[in-house]
């Protein structure tokens, strides 16, 4: 490093000489070091040490606490994360951040986090089995996993390998897609069906968007929320919180929700619908809008002679109506809407005819700046797909689809996929991939019509049954990451049994969760907000943003990033065993700046991110939105913002069969017919098998379906109204003490408790008081929690937040780790039922519970 040459010595000497002589401006004061010219000894007795703080830096990253996927900044002082805020560079959420962003601080430094890999020593798996975890090295863990994979491949059983994921970044395709494909398995199972797939069904089969929507609330004059609670939970909570005060000044807000939610509490109108009956409400509103002639003519069209022929009970001649950007309005009226009066709806849905008519009228009079906000409540039900269509179709009636002040899709973005996997698939791989998937998607009973295709979407919860019934075959190995399926799926005990059956399970996770307790190897993962690279995509404020996940603190423990580093290290192990396809593929992920191939897991992790986001930051590949000088510039900003929304850009150009907004869905007709044909049958038979009631043409229009509810209706049974706590970071924040300290921000809830809320009239009849310990049960399971009386509860229902009820995960999440739950997990009483057309699990309007006061009443 140090060259000894004369030049150096001579120059140094000349400098030293100069320094000796006092430097450029040295004076007598500079006794502390020779040659000082800018500093001098102080006369003042100013011995105050440097003040604490003022050396913190705001560093950008992303929050994955819910699917708002906010761009955030973390305040790092001396390498520690100390505060969190929204990223001012974001055009979606800006500096705003909802309450649970802050819980990340307690998550990342949680002492119950796994510090290093561990393996199971007790060969028996079960709910009551102690896994007997012992620490092992990463090396040993990876060796074991690699050996198991090679074993499966060598026995022609590569398809019995499975990957499941829960939360992710958009580097997910490495672990979720490439890895199983190269190994030779078709089984990559995501959590999407326990998330929101049914919600996307309506928007897809009307206007071609199988995705989340954003809502231009700042320009709206009526916002009608259907089971959506934008100021509390999904999605883009930070943005909508910021906008809501203004929305309330400019627009009327109405909320359809069985319980008094946060949004309902601040709404102009609360429509306390009976769970499952949202469809009745929606079609009745459509009836009102049409009979009053209030549909938005510019978008929908009109009767040729201008005379409104939509009269209750009367069919209409299609030829009399000229549609502009929609399709099938008159069919919809004729097949479904003509008899759906407010009075008819009021008989079954719990909302008065008056209110139905008033809300529908005022909603439509605000056209086109009137939003129907479709949430999970009406859609994630057994017959929820048509609720999804019915509620979303109202946007079509008022012309707010893709319009200012209306419901919008996602702005274009320019990230890329990863290098093609095809050249790296050997024969074993190709053979394995061609097998059917374990979740039975596409079976006659499970159309899962994501994107118009039979079996196009996942049926997450069905996987447990596939495993248990070995249908289509048995599963021998699972690698799961960022999820907790043994907790988060309805009728979760089936997962416990399924996991106990699978011989070899691996979990990449931050904590030892319920799922981990059934695993053979558990690997400590990085925390998404603080310790790893990745990127996300989210929408709001008429923009799309791609925020980066960045490591902003030094990793505290021996953790690795699931989606990238783990895969690389595994690929190395496989190559050592003579199977180098994965490693060869990963070497294709070159740094777009230098063209260099990665040589280790850290480089792979970084290059993968640079590769996928190249078009966002590389000046030579600029396509739109924010401009950056290069990678560093983008990295510091932490987020790329799209161009503003192109309103009405999709009018006449929707991703549907007719290119228009479909009230009579030709797109759905095609999809159902294709699925029927695949199984050599007809659409009516499909509907029968999937537990729907409609037949014939009604199947292709939004229509009312009577809800399918498990458990008989009686004075002693209560419809479960599940909802998500506004403190949930999905299922992961329940080991944070702040979660319990703040629990009362869920309306009517109690600090430190897991409450089931009853209407006081019902409670009196049951002899329940605040604080009573109770058991809730159904035919599928039971849970214990605390009773609470609250007027915001609809009589005949029991309202309980999802989130608590962990029996593992950590010392605060559970009562006794590995044994006793703290609170009760709603999934234990929910049946494993589905909206089969979308593949979604049903969480709402699906089960009635009984209540029992516990003998032992303790805190």
């Amino acid at each position, binding site marked *: 490093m140090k060259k000894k040459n004369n030049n150096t010595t001579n120059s140094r*000497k000349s400098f*030293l000489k100069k320094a*000796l002589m006092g430097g450029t401006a040295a004076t007598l004061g500079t*006794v502390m070091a020779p040659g000082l010219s800018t500093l001098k*000894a102080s006369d003042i007795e100013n*011995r105050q*040490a440097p*003040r*604490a*703080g003022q050396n*913190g830096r705001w560093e950008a990253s992303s929050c994955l606490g819910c699917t708002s996927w906010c761009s955030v900044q973390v305040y790092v*002082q001396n*390498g*520690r*994360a100390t*505060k*969190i*805020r*929204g990223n001012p560079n974001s055009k979606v959420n800006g*500096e*705003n*951040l*909802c*309450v649970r962003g*802050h819980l990340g601080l307690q998550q990342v*430094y949680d*002492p*119950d986090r*796994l*510090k290093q890999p561990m393996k199971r020593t007790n060969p028996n798996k079960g709910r009551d089995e102690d896994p007997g*975890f*012992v*620490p092992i090295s990463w090396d040993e863990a990876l060796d074991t996993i690699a050996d198991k994979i090679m074993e499966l491949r060598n026995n022609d059983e590569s398809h019995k390998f499975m990957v499941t994921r829960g939360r992710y970044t958009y580097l997910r395709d490495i672990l979720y897609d490439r890895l199983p494909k190269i190994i030779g398995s078709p089984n990559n199972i995501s959590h999407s069906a326990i998330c929101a797939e049914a919600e996307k069904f309506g928007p897809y089969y009307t206007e071609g968007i199988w995705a989340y929507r954003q809502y231009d609330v700042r320009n709206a004059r009526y916002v009608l929320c259907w089971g959506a609670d934008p*100021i*509390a939970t999904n999605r883009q909570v*930070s943005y909508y*919180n*910021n906008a*809501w*005060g203004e929305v309330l000044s*400019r*627009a*009327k807000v109405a909320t359809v929700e069985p319980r*008094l939610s946060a949004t309902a*509490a*601040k709404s102009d109108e*609360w429509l*306390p619908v009976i769970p499952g009956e949202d469809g009745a409400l929606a079609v009745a509103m459509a009836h009102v809008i049409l009979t009053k002639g209030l549909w938005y003519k510019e978008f929908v069209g009109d009767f040729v002679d201008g005379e409104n022929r939509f009269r209750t009970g009367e069919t209409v001649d299609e030829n009399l109506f000229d549609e502009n950007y929609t399709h099938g309005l008159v069919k919809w009226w004729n097949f479904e809407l003509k008899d759906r009066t407010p009075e008819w709806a009021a008989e079954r849905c719990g909302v008065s005819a008056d209110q139905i008519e008033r809300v529908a009228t*005022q909603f439509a009079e605000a056209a086109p*700046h009137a939003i129907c906000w479709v949430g999970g409540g009406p859609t994630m039900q057994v017959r929820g797909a048509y609720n999804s269509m019915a509620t979303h179709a109202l946007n079509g009636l008022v012309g707010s689809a893709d319009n200012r002040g209306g419901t919008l899709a996602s702005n274009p973005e320019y990230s890329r996929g990863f290098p093609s996997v095809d050249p790296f698939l050997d024969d074993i791989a190709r053979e394995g991939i061609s097998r059917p998937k374990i979740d039975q998607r596409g079976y006659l009973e499970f159309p899962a019509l994501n994107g118009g295709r039979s079996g196009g979407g996942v049926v997450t919860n069905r996987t447990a049954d596939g495993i248990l019934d070995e249908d289509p075959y048995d599963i021998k190995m699972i690698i799961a990451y960022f999820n907790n399926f043994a907790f988060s799926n309805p009728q979760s005990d089936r997962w416990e049994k399924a996991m106990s059956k699978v011989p070899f399970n691996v979990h990449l996770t931050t904590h*030892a969760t319920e799922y981990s307790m059934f695993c053979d190897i558990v690997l400590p993962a990085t925390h998404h907000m603080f310790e790893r690279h990745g990127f996300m995509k989210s929408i709001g404020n008429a923009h799309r943003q791609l925020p980066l996940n960045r490591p902003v603190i030094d990793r*505290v*423990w021996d953790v690795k990033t699931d989606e990238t580093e783990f895969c690389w290290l595994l690929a190395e192990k496989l190559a050592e065993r003579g199977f180098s396809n994965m490693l060869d593929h990963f070497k294709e992920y070159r740094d777009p700046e230098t063209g260099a191939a990665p040589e280790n897991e850290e480089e792979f992790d970084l290059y993968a991110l640079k590769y996928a986001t190249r078009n966002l930051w590389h000046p030579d590949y600029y396509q739109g939105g924010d401009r950056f000088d290069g990678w560093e510039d983008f990295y510091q900003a932490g987020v790329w913002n799209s161009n503003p929304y192109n309103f009405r850009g999709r009018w006449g150009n929707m991703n549907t069969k007719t290119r228009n907004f479909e009230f009579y869905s030709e797109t759905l007709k095609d999809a159902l017919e294709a699925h029927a044909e695949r199984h050599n049958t007809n659409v009516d038979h499909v509907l029968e098998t999937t537990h729907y009631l409609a037949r014939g043409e009604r199947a292709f229009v939004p229509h009312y379906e009577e809800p399918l509810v498990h458990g008989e209706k009686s004075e002693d049974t209560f419809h479960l109204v599940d909802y998500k706590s506004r403190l949930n970071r999905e299922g992961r924040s329940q080991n944070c*003490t*702040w979660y319990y300290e703040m629990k*009362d921000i869920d*309306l009517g809830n109690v600090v430190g408790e897991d409450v089931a809320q009853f209407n006081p009239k019902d409670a009196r009849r049951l002899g329940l008081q605040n604080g009573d310990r109770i058991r809730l049960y159904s035919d599928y399971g039971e849970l214990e929690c605390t009773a609470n009386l609250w*007027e*915001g509860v609809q009589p005949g229902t029991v309202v309980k937040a999802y989130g608590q009820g962990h029996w593992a995960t*950590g010392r605060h999440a559970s009562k006794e780790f590995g044994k006793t739950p703290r609170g009760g997990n709603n999934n234990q009483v929910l049946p494993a039922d589905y909206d089969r057309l979308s593949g979604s699990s049903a969480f709402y309007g699906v089960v009635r519970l009984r209540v029992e006061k516990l003998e032992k009443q303790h805190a």
Partner: protein
Amino acid sequence: MSRFKKNSEEKQRNGDRIDETKHQNSADRESNGGISRRDFFKSIGAGAAVAGMATSCTRTDPNEGLEDLEGTNLVMVIDLQRCTGCGGCDIACKSENNLREGHFWSHHITHTTGEFPNVRYEYLPTLCNHCENAPCEKACPTSALHKVNGGVTAHDPIKCIGCRACIINCPYGEVHAHFGEPHSEWKSEDELIEGVTGSPKSALEDTGGNGVPYYNPERENFGEGNRYHGIVEKCDFCLHRLKEKKLPACVKRCPTDARIFGDLNDPNSSVSRVLAKYRPFRRMEHLGTQPKVFYVRSFNSAADYPQTKGELAEMDAERIDDWKFSDIDYLEAEDPQTRNIAMLMNADRQGKIDHSKKAQEEQLFG
């Protein structure tokens, strides 16, 4: 590669007696044929102070660092229409001020009234009101609770004797007492899974942080970073941040912009102008404490109800639609009356005052 080790190795190679660098350097002098190291770098006189991290010190001048706030009267206005009851303020305050478990300086009161389905839920964000007529300050025997510039009720931990007269006297319950060590739960050595997870104690050690891993040292710039056994604590409008020309954490972190902070003595500040527009209420005003936290508007802004004199009136209730206009489309409405109304509303909005956080910062700190 260690520079330090290399140096001592070099010194060792040149002779065993590391202390006696003088001799060693003489040897160098000979070999280099030039100036000795010692002679080159003249030895210095005084030593230097240790640059450690600041801890709290008794402040001789209570207003040190707050000179810019002299003559101001700092108040907070909370707009309940914007507030969504999210609780972000509470947690932001906790992390900013290193509050121990169970303590809240920013908190809330919730209230449900009515009977299904006519139910009303309200959320009221609460904090110390920094009363002009503060009962806590009056009760404090040592003047540990005292007013500083801006009219902020501050607390000096050194002077506090923990008598808790303040807690007794505060009608709002906004002063909190400390028993035991702060963050004592982080002292536990309990490992969840032996050898695999940490314990709170090891997690704290591994990450650093004074008491909690996410400890915020900036709190030390006014008062104690962690308040300790025997004293009380309360919100001080984040004086440690005001010194740095930053808004209080709850104000800055509120995602709905419901909290507005500023100088009531300035007639043009956001707080003055908002209070001129909306009739505020304060907590327990009848007690005469003169709180400086004001609430405006309503958590639920529902406006529609039938125009009526009540059920006992003979007339049928007529519905009046309460339109909340926006400037879009209605400016182009066919009906002139609608257009006029829209234009008036629009004009009002043009003159809208900027109450954003940025505006507040500029007003207060320039």
